[in-house]
């Protein structure tokens, strides 16, 4: 106990040329996920450490699909002598380490957890989500679309086990949990100096400044901003956006906190056996709000508004927080050029 306490007080760093050794050691016990690049950058299971991509900022595709894949089998059914037999596909447990998560990734997991392992628990998500170690990393510079500073900045308050910040030849290391404390006892870390700490702070401030320069939007007063947006339900802006939105759903799919899915059955020709699966769904699609009686969001502008409300109004009413991380992915992929940051600026100004 005493030792652990000492370690937390001590400031730590890890030499860049020892990162691979460290990851290799983790890989012995855990499945390692880290950013890779194959046209698009995303988190993938790492077999060979050289395939890891050390990116300057977030990946194109978020962490979401590790825990909540685009298509997932629930179970297989088969008609037997004694009625239907079910074979569940709750995946086997996997102890994972995620290396290279960004602040927005970590916040998005907190939001997904809120939806999928809070009030309602999703066993398929839970199974993949538990036993996950997260090693986060500060960005070197933001992307054009980033606006995480509107949600508290690049470094999250919690949600990581270790947090790395590039300080030249080394990464400065912050420890965020008991598991993090265990990891630093692995022997790859060394004491950092006050100068290292200064470097880290300077580094973060610089990037933070860059992000704020782009963002120029303050959403920190959650209640007030959310009210402000709610009041604008009849605003001109929705018509404008509804006209240009292609309702392709890309913003939903790429969003690390969008979590809607459709449940489908894939039967054999006579229905005697088959699979039940879930597939990501999107509130921009025509059939999303269609019921046997009515389609509640037939018009495109209603769908665009709904998505913004489902990030900035409804979750605030229900959980007191936004469901957006400011990662800017939706803005980046939108073929119609709809920029969420600008939309918010118009709404709260």
């Amino acid at each position: 106990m005493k030792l652990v306490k000492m370690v937390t007080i001590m400031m730590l760093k890890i030499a860049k040329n020892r990162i691979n050794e460290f990851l290799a050691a983790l890989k012995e016990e855990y499945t390692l996920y880290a950013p890779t690049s194959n046209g698009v950058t995303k988190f993938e299971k790492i077999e060979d450490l050289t395939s890891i991509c050390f990116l300057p900022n977030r990946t194109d595709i978020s962490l979401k699909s590790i825990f909540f894949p685009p298509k997932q089998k629930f179970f297989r059914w088969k008609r037997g002598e004694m009625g239907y037999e079910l074979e569940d596909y709750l995946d086997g447990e996997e102890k994972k380490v995620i290396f290279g998560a960004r602040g927005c990734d970590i916040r998005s997991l907190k939001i997904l957890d809120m939806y999928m392992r809070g009030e309602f628990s999703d066993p398929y998500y839970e199974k993949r989500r538990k036993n996950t170690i997260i090693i986060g990393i500060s960005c070197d510079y933001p992307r054009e679309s980033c606006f995480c500073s509107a949600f508290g900045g690049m470094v999250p308050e919690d949600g990581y086990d270790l947090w790395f910040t590039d300080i030249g030849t080394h990464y400065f290391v912050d420890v965020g949990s008991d598991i993090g404390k265990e990891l630093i006892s692995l022997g790859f870390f060394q004491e950092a100096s006050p100068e290292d700490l200064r470097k880290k702070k300077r580094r973060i401030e610089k990037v933070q400044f860059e992000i704020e320069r782009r963002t120029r939007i303050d959403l920190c007063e959650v209640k007030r901003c959310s009210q402000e947006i709610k009041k604008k339900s009849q605003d001109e802006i929705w018509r404008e956006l509804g006209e240009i939105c292609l309702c392709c759903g890309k913003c939903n799919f790429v969003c690390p906190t969008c979590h809607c899915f459709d449940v489908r059955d894939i039967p054999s020709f006579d229905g005697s056996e088959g699979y039940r699966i879930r597939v990501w769904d999107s509130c921009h699609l025509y059939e999303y709000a269609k019921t046997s009686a009515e389609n509640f969001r037939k018009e495109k502008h209603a769908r665009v508004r709904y998505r913004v409300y489902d990030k900035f109004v409804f979750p605030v009413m229900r959980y007191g927080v936004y469901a957006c991380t400011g990662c800017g992915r939706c803005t980046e992929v939108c073929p119609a050029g709809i920029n969420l940051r600008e939309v918010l600026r118009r709404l709260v100004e």
Partner: protein
Amino acid sequence: MEFLNLEAQILDLLKYLGIKNFRLAKEINEMPVDIAFVEGTPTNREEIIKLLKIRKGSHILVALGSCASTGGVPALVNTLRKREAMDVYDGEPPEIPIDPKPLDYYVDVDYRLYGCPFSKDELIELITDIIIGKNYRDKEYSVCVECSLRENGCLLEQGLLCLGPITRGGCNALCTANGKPCLGCRGPYEDANIKAHIKVLLDMGFSKEEVMEALSLFSYEKFKEVIAWLKEE
């Protein structure tokens, strides 16, 4: 012909369905049938009469593939004056052709399997639904949906003329997943925001002509109003 490519499933399928009439694969063909799959679209009077007969002799009529469900490539000829179109033949054309139209221009169509070629998975889905008694529905969303589910990079972002956002899904983004922009072989879906996508393409720097050509390739019959609008713009 995609039917014969069903290899893995065809024997299983034959437990439930018999094939009574298959010009390309069978010698003796009979009518009436429960389900008629019609590929292609009539381009002369005889073919229209044949189509009407098939409709009469079948419970369910399925338009199979692009030409049958949207008019497909043959409808491209509708963009030209007939006389120009006839120039492709040396001398006398075989018969005076009529404008190729989707089958539902002539007869009631129960189901459509879009695409060139149509998707085997959708064919199986349709047959299963018919056997089980479920209602098979057209996909009411774009190719982008399936492309995003495969976590591909966006070809529009790479500056390519892709019709994904306005083209009906169901192909599992076969082309775009292989780096080829969507040509729109499945035609537009009802909810597609076609004008907005045209605007996106024009803003990307494509000319009106290029956009019109892309729209005409597979679904001129479906896009002709919007093409006329674009010409005027």
